[in-house]
C-alpha cells in the first residue's frame, strides 16, 4: 500500500519535473500530468477499496513525530472517497482540457497538477495551518486556472476572486492563530477538544475559522465573485471548481465543525438554506448557461451546507444523505459544464443545437434530472432520507424551504432542458467532437446511474428489482437505431410480460390494483399498437414511454412510500418526455413538469410527516396516522390532484394533451391521469375513515364538481379537436374526484366505473381524433367537416365514444351516470350534484360539436381524397370498442367483484345483484337489458330510415358556389365555427383564463423578485468584498445574540 503522503510526492514531483521540458514538448507535459493524476487517483482509490473492505483509517505523521508536534494526514473512508472523486474529476478534467493546456504551455500544466494535488491535501490534512497553506495553494492555482483563456471577462473574474479569497484567507489565518494561542495546538482534533467556545475570544476565533470556510463555500449573498468565476472561466475549469473544489471545501467545513457547537450547526444550516433558496430564485432570470450553472452550483452547495448544519439532527443518516447529494452534484455539475464547453454556446436558447447530438441531449437530461433529485439518481434517495429525517425531527420550516428551493431550481433547469429539446434551431453542428472531450461527460453520465443504483441498495425497504426495469429501458434506448416497428414489438412484449406476471395474482388478491393494472398496462399495449402507424425510427419515443409505464407499474407494486414515490417520479419523468415530444409542447411540457414537481413535493412532504408519526414507510402505515391527518391528507390530495388536473391545478393539461403526438395523447390522458386517481384511492382507503379527512374530502367534492363544470364549459368553446378532448378529460376527472370524495360505496363504485369508462372512451376518442389529425393535418375542427364518407371507421368510433361519454343508454357511460345519481342522493350532496348534472348537459354541446364539425356538414375541398384512419389506429380503437361493449352489456362482470372489493371499506348501501340486474337504494338497472332494448330500437329506426332513403334526393357535395370572392377568414364559413358564441356570452366568464392568469402572476412575481434581487451582484469586485465582511459581521451578530 502506498502511503497517502505520496499523493503529494507524485503531484509536486511531477509538477517540478515538468520544468525540465522544453516548449516543444507540451503534449508530453500534459500526458505526464495525466499520468501523475492517474497515479494519485490510484493511490487514493486503492485506499478507498481497502478502507471500504473494513480496514482501519490510518494516520500519516510527517517527520516521524506524532501530532500535534508535526502535521498529520488522515486517510479514512470519507477522505479516501472524496480524494478519489477529486482525482477522478482532475484526471477527466485534464483529459477534457488536453488541448487548452497544451496550447497554454507547461506552466499552465503545472498549475493544473498542483491544483489537483492541493485539493487532495486539503482533504487529508488534520492540521489547521497546513489546511490554510494548501487552501491558499488551491486558491492561487484557481486564480491561475481562471485566466487560462485570458479574455477580458476571465481576468476580471479572476481578480474579483483573488480579492475576495484574499480577505477570506486573512480572516481564516487570524482565526487559526488565535485558536493556536488559546488551545496551544494547531491540530484540528486538539483544537476541537479544547472548548474554545467557553470564552469570548475563543468563540471569536471559532467564528473566524468557520465563517471563512463557509465563505469559501460561496454563501448567498456574499458570493458575487464566485458567480463571475463560473461564468467567465473555461467550462473545463468551472467543472473542476464546481465539482472538485466544492467537494474539498465541503469536507473542510465538515472537518472543522467539531470545533464549534450546536448553535453553530444551526447557523450553518440557516446560512445554507438562505443560499439554496436565494441562489435558485435568482437563477430564474439567467439567460446564460454558465452563469446559470454557477447559480445552481451555489444553490447545491447551500443545500449541502444545510445538511451539514443539520448533522446533529440527522444522526447516522447524515453521511448517506450528504454523500448521495454531493455525488449527484459532483457528477451532474461537472457533466453539465463539460457539455457547456463542448457546445460553445452560452445562451440557454441556443442549446437547441444539442438536439443534433442525441447522446448529449440524453446526458444533459440525465444530469438535470439527477440535480433535481429524480429517481434513479443518488440525490433522489438522499433527498428522500433528508425529508424523512427532517419531518421526524419536526423541522418543518427547513423541510418546506428545501422543497421550495428544489422547486425553483427545477423551474430553470427544466425550462433549459425544454429549450434544448424543443427550441427552434436552424444552426447545424459544425464543429468536431474530440474524443477526449466526449469521454468525461459520458463517463460521468454512466456513473450517475451506477451511483443511483448503489445508493438504492442502502435504502431500507426498497426493492432493487425495479432497476431491472430501468436496465431494460436502457437496452431499448441503446437499440434506438432500430426501426420503430421492432422497438414497438419489444415494448408491447415487455408490457405484456409485466402484465402477465402481475395480473393473475392481483385478480384474486386486490381488485383495485387489478383494474388499475389493466388500465395502465393493457391500455399501454393498446396504445402501443397504434405506434405501428409511424414510420422511421421514432427516436427517443420508446424509452420514455416505457419509463412512464415502468413508473405506473411500480406505483401498483409499491408496498412502501419510498417505492411509491420512486415509481411516481419515474412516471413523471417519462410522461414529461412524452408530452414534450409534441410539436408546440415546450411550454406545456414545462408547466406539466412544474405542477408535477410541486405535486410530488407535496406528496413527499406528506410521506415525511406520516413517517414522523408512524415511524414506518409502509404504505399501509398511512392508515395509522392520527395527529397531522388534515395536513397529510390535504398534501397528498393536492399532490395527486396535480395529476388528475383538478381545478386550479389543471392549466398544464389542455396544451400538453392537445399538442402531444396522436398516440401519446391517449397515453397521457386516458392512462396517465388515472395514476392520480389511483393515488387518491390509496389515500382515501388509508385515511378516509377519519372525520378530519372527511372534512377535507367535502372540499374535494366541491372542487371536483367545479372542475367538472369548468372543464366541460371550456371544452364547449374549443375549436381544436384535441384541446376539446383535453378539457373534457379535465371535466371527467372532476367527476371522478367528486365521486371519490363522497367516500361511500356508491360513490366509489361511480368513481371506478367512470375511471374505466374514461379510460375506454377517452382512448377511443383520442386515438381516433389523433388518427384523423394525422390524415388531415390539422387540429382545428373548422378545417374539417364531412369526413363521414371518407372515414367511416373513424366516424363509428367517435360516435360510440361520444355516446359512452355522454352517458346515454345503452353504453356504459349511462351506468356511470345512474350510479352517480344514486350516490349523490345517498350522500345528500345536492348542490354539488346539481352542478355536476348541469355540466353533464354541457357535455352534450361539445360532443355534438365534435362529431358534427368533423364528420358531418360540408367536406372541405382539400380533404376530398383523404383516406380512412390508419389500420394500426383502428385495431386498438376497435379492441377498445369491443371492451366498451362488453362492459356495457355485462357490467356485472366487473361491477360485482368491484362491489365486493369496495364493501371491504364501505360495506353499507351497495348494489345488490340479481343476474344482470343491479338494484341500488334509489332504483335498478340492467345493463344487458338496456343494451338489448336500445339495440332493437336502433335497428328499427335504421331500417325505417333506409326504407325512406330510397325516396331521398341526392345533392352533390359541391353544388353551391361562392358568389364572387373568397372570404377573408375561411374558417368563419364553417358552419360550426364558434358555434356556441351565444353560450360564450352567457357563461364565458367562467372559463376566462383566471387560473392561468393567477399562475402567470405568481411566476411573474417570482421572476421580478429574482430580477430585483440579483442586482445585488453589481459586478463591482470591491462591493463583493464589502459583502464578505458584512457576512462575517452578520455571523458575529447572530453568534452574540
Amino acid at each position, binding site marked *: 500500500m502506498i502511503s497517502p503522503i505520496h499523493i503529494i510526492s507524485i503531484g509536486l514531483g511531477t509538477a517540478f519535473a515538468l*520544468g525540465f521540458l522544453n516548449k516543444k514538448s507540451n503534449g508530453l507535459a500534459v500526458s505526464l500530468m495525466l499520468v501523475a493524476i492517474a497515479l494519485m487517483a490510484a493511490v487514493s482509490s486503492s485506499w478507498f477499496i481497502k478502507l471500504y473492505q473494513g480496514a482501519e483509517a490510518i494516520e500519516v*505523521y*510527517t517527520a*516521524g513525530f506524532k501530532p500535534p508536534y508535526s*502535521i498529520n494526514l488522515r486517510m479514512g473512508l470519507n477522505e479516501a472517497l472524496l480524494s478519489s472523486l477529486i482525482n477522478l474529476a482532475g484526471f477527466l478534467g485534464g483529459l477534457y482540457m488536453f488541448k487548452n493546456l497544451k496550447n497554454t504551455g507547461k506552466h*499552465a500544466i503545472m498549475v493544473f497538477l498542483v491544483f489537483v494535488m492541493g485539493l487532495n491535501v486539503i482533504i487529508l490534512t488534520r492540521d489547521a495551518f497546513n489546511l490554510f497553506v494548501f487552501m491558499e495553494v488551491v486558491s492561487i492555482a484557481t486564480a491561475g486556472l481562471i485566466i487560462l483563456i485570458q479574455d477580458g471577462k476571465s481576468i476580471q473574474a479572476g481578480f474579483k476572486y483573488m480579492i475576495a479569497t484574499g480577505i477570506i484567507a486573512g480572516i481564516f489565518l487570524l482565526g487559526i492563530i488565535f485558536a493556536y494561542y488559546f488551545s496551544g495546538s494547531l491540530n484540528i482534533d486538539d483544537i476541537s477538544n479544547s472548548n474554545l467556545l467557553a470564552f469570548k475570544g*475563543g468563540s471569536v476565533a471559532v467564528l473566524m475559522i468557520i465563517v471563512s470556510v463557509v465563505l469559501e463555500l460561496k454563501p448567498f449573498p456574499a458570493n458575487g465573485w464566485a458567480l463571475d468565476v463560473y461564468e467567465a472561466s473555461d467550462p473545463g475549469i468551472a467543472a473542476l471548481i464546481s465539482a472538485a473544489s466544492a467537494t474539498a471545501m465541503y469536507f473542510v467545513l465538515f472537518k472543522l465543525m467539531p470545533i464549534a457547537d450546536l448553535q453553530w450547526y444551526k447557523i450553518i444550516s440557516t446560512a445554507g438554506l438562505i443560499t439554496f433558496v436565494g441562489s435558485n430564485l435568482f437563477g430564474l432570470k439567467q439567460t446564460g448557461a454558465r452563469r446559470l450553472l454557477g447559480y445552481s452550483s451555489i444553490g447545491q452547495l447551500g443545500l449541502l451546507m444545510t445538511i451539514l448544519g443539520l448533522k446533529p439532527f440527522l444522526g447516522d443518516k447524515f453521511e448517506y444523505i450528504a454523500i448521495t447529494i454531493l455525488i449527484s452534484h459532483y457528477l451532474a455539475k461537472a457533466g453539465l459544464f463539460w457539455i457547456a464547453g463542448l457546445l460553445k454556446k452560452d445562451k440557454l436558447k441556443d442549446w437547441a443545437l444539442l438536439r443534433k447530438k442525441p447522446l448529449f441531449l440524453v446526458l444533459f437530461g440525465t444530469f438535470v434530472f439527477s440535480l433535481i433529485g429524480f429517481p434513479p439518481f443518488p440525490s433522489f434517495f438522499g433527498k428522500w432520507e433528508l425529508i424523512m429525517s427532517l419531518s421526524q425531527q419536526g423541522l418543518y420550516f427547513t423541510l418546506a424551504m428545501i422543497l421550495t428551493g428544489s422547486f425553483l431550481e427545477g423551474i430553470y433547469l427544466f425550462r433549459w432542458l425544454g429549450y434544448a429539446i424543443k427550441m427552434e434551431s436552424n444552426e447545424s453542428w459544425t464543429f468536431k467532437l474530440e474524443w477526449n472531450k466526449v469521454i468525461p461527460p459520458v463517463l460521468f453520465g454512466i456513473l450517475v446511474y451506477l451511483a443511483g443504483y448503489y445508493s438504492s441498495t442502502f435504502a431500507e425497504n426498497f426493492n432493487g428489482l425495479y432497476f431491472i426495469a430501468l436496465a431494460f429501458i436502457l437496452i431499448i434506448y441503446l437499440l434506438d437505431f432500430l426501426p420503430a416497428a421492432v422497438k414497438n414489438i419489444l415494448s408491447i412484449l415487455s408490457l405484456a410480460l409485466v402484465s402477465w406476471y402481475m395480473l393473475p395474482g392481483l385478480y384474486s388478491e386486490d381488485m383495485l390494483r387489478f383494474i388499475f393494472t389493466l388500465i395502465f398496462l393493457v391500455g399501454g399495449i393498446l396504445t402501443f399498437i397504434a405506434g405501428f402507424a409511424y414510420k422511421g425510427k421514432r427516436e427517443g419515443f420508446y424509452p420514455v414511454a416505457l419509463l412512464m409505464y415502468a413508473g405506473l407499474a411500480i406505483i401498483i407494486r409499491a408496498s412502501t412510500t419510498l417505492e411509491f414515490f420512486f415509481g411516481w417520479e419515474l412516471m413523471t419523468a417519462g410522461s414529461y418526455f412524452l408530452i414534450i415530444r409534441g410539436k408546440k409542447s415546450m411550454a406545456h411540457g414545462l408547466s406539466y413538469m412544474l405542477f408535477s414537481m410541486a405535486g410530488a413535493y407535496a406528496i413527499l412532504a406528506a410521506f415525511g410527516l406520516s413517517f414522523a408519526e408512524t415511524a414506518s414507510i409502509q404504505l399501509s402505515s398511512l392508515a395509522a396516522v392520527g395527529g397531522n391527518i388534515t395536513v397529510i391528507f390535504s398534501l397528498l390530495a393536492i399532490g395527486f390532484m396535480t395529476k388528475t388536473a383538478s381545478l386550479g391545478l389543471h392549466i398544464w393539461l389542455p396544451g400538453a394533451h392537445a399538442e402531444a403526438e396522436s398516440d401519446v395523447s391517449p397515453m397521457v390522458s386516458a392512462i396517465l391521469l388515472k395514476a392520480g386517481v389511483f393515488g387518491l384511492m390509496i389515500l382515501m382507503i388509508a385515511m378516509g375513515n377519519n372525520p378530519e379527512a372527511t372534512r377535507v374530502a367535502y372540499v374535494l367534492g366541491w372542487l371536483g364538481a367545479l372542475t367538472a363544470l369548468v372543464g366541460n364549459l371550456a371544452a364547449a368553446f374549443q375549436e381544436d379537436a384535441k384541446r376539446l378532448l383535453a378539457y373534457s378529460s379535465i371535466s371527467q376527472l372532476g367527476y371522478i374526484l367528486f365521486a371519490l370524495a363522497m367516500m361511500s360505496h356508491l360513490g366509489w363504485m361511480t368513481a371506478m366505473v367512470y375511471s374505466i369508462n374514461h379510460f375506454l372512451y377517452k382512448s377511443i376518442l383520442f386515438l381516433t381524433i389523433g388518427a384523423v389529425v394525422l390524415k388531415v393535418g390539422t387540429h382545428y375542427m373548422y378545417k374539417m367537416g364531412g369526413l363521414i364518407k371518407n372515414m367511416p371507421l373513424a366516424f363509428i368510433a367517435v360516435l360510440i365514444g361520444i355516446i359512452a361519454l355522454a352517458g346515454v343508454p345503452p353504453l356504459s357511460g349511462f351506468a356511470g351516470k345512474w350510479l352517480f345519481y344514486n350516490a349523490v342522493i345517498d350522500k345528500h350532496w345536492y348542490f354539488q350534484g346539481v352542478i355536476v348534472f348541469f355540466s353533464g348537459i354541457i357535455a352534450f354541446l361539445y360532443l355534438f360539436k365534435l362529431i358534427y364539425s368533423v364528420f358531418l356538414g360540408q367536406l372541405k375541398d382539400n380533404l376530398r381524397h383523404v383516406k380512412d384512419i390508419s389500420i394500426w389506429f383502428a385495431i386498438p380503437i376497435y379492441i377498445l370498442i369491443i371492451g366498451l361493449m362488453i362492459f356495457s352489456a355485462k357490467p356485472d362482470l366487473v361491477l360485482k367483484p368491484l362491489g365486493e372489493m369496495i364493501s371491504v371499506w364501505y360495506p353499507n348501501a351497495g348494489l345488490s345483484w340479481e343476474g344482470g340486474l343491479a338494484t341500488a337504494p334509489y332504483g335498478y338497472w340492467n345493463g344487458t337489458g338496456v343494451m338489448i332494448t336500445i339495440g332493437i330500437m336502433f335497428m328499427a329506426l335504421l331500417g325505417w330510415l333506409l326504407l325512406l332513403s330510397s325516396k331521398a334526393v341526392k345533392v352533390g357535395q359541391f353544388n353551391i358556389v361562392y358568389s364572387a370572392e373568397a372570404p377573408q377568414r375561411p374558417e368563419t364559413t364553417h358552419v360550426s365555427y364558434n358555434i356556441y358564441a351565444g353560450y360564450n356570452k352567457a357563461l364565458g366568464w367562467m372559463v376566462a383564463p383566471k387560473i392561468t392568469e393567477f399562475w402567470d402572476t405568481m411566476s411573474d412575481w417570482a421572476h421580478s423578485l429574482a430580477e430585483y434581487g440579483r442586482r445585488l451582484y453589481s459586478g463591482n469586485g470591491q462591493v463583493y468584498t464589502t459583502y464578505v465582511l458584512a457576512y462575517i459581521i452578520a455571523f*458575529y451578530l447572530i453568534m452574540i445574540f
Partner: protein
Amino acid sequence: MRKLFIIIILAAFGLMLYPLIQSFSGNDHLSELATYYAQKENIEKVNSVNLVTAIVVTYRGLDTLGEVTILFLTAAIIAFFLKGPSTLRTLRPNSEIFITAARVLVPIMVMFGVYIFMNGHLSPGGGFQGGAVIASAVILMFLAFPDAPFQHKFFGFMESISGLVFVGLAALGALIGSGFLDNTILPLGTFGKLLSAGAIPVIYSFVGLKVGAELSNILNEFKSVQSDK
C-alpha cells in the same frame, strides 16, 4: 453613503476583534506545543540550533512545501499570464560606477544569500531569506545590465531541480526514515555545527535555491513586460 456603511462594518469588525484582545493575556511560559519543541531531548532529536528552522523544515515541513509550491505557482501563472513579445527598450546607460559596483556586489550578494540559507539551522534566516537576497542580487543585475539576457533556462532548471530534491528528500524520509520530511535520513552531526541537524541544511538550501529562482523568475516576468511597449 457607501463609506458610512463601510465605516459601520469596519467598526463592527473592530468590535469583533476586541474580545480577542480581551482574552489575550500575553504568555508567561511557552505553550504545550512549544514546550515540546524546546525540550532538550526533543531538540536533540532534530539537532538544529535555530528552533524556528527546525519547525519550518522538519516539524511543519509540509507547510514549507506548500509555501514553495505557492511561489512556484505564482511564478508559473505569471509566466503564462504575462507572456508577450519582449522587445528591448533603450534605457539611459547606467553610470560606470554603478555598473562596476554591481559587478562586484552581485556575486557577493549571491554568496551572502547562500550563506544565509546554508546556516539556516544555526543562525537567524534560512531558505526564504537567503532566496530573497539572491533575488535582490538579480534585481541589481536587472538594473545594472538592463540589456543582458535573463538566463531563463538556468533559473527554470534551478527551480525544478531544487524542487525535485526537496520533494525527493521528503519522500525519502517516508521511505527510509520515520516519516515524510524526516530529517534523520542524514546523520544528525554535532549540535551547533554546520554539518548537523540531518537533512535540514540540505533541504533548506534547496528551499533557498528554489525560492531564489522562483522570485527571480517572477521579477523577470514583471521586468520583461516593462519592455513590450
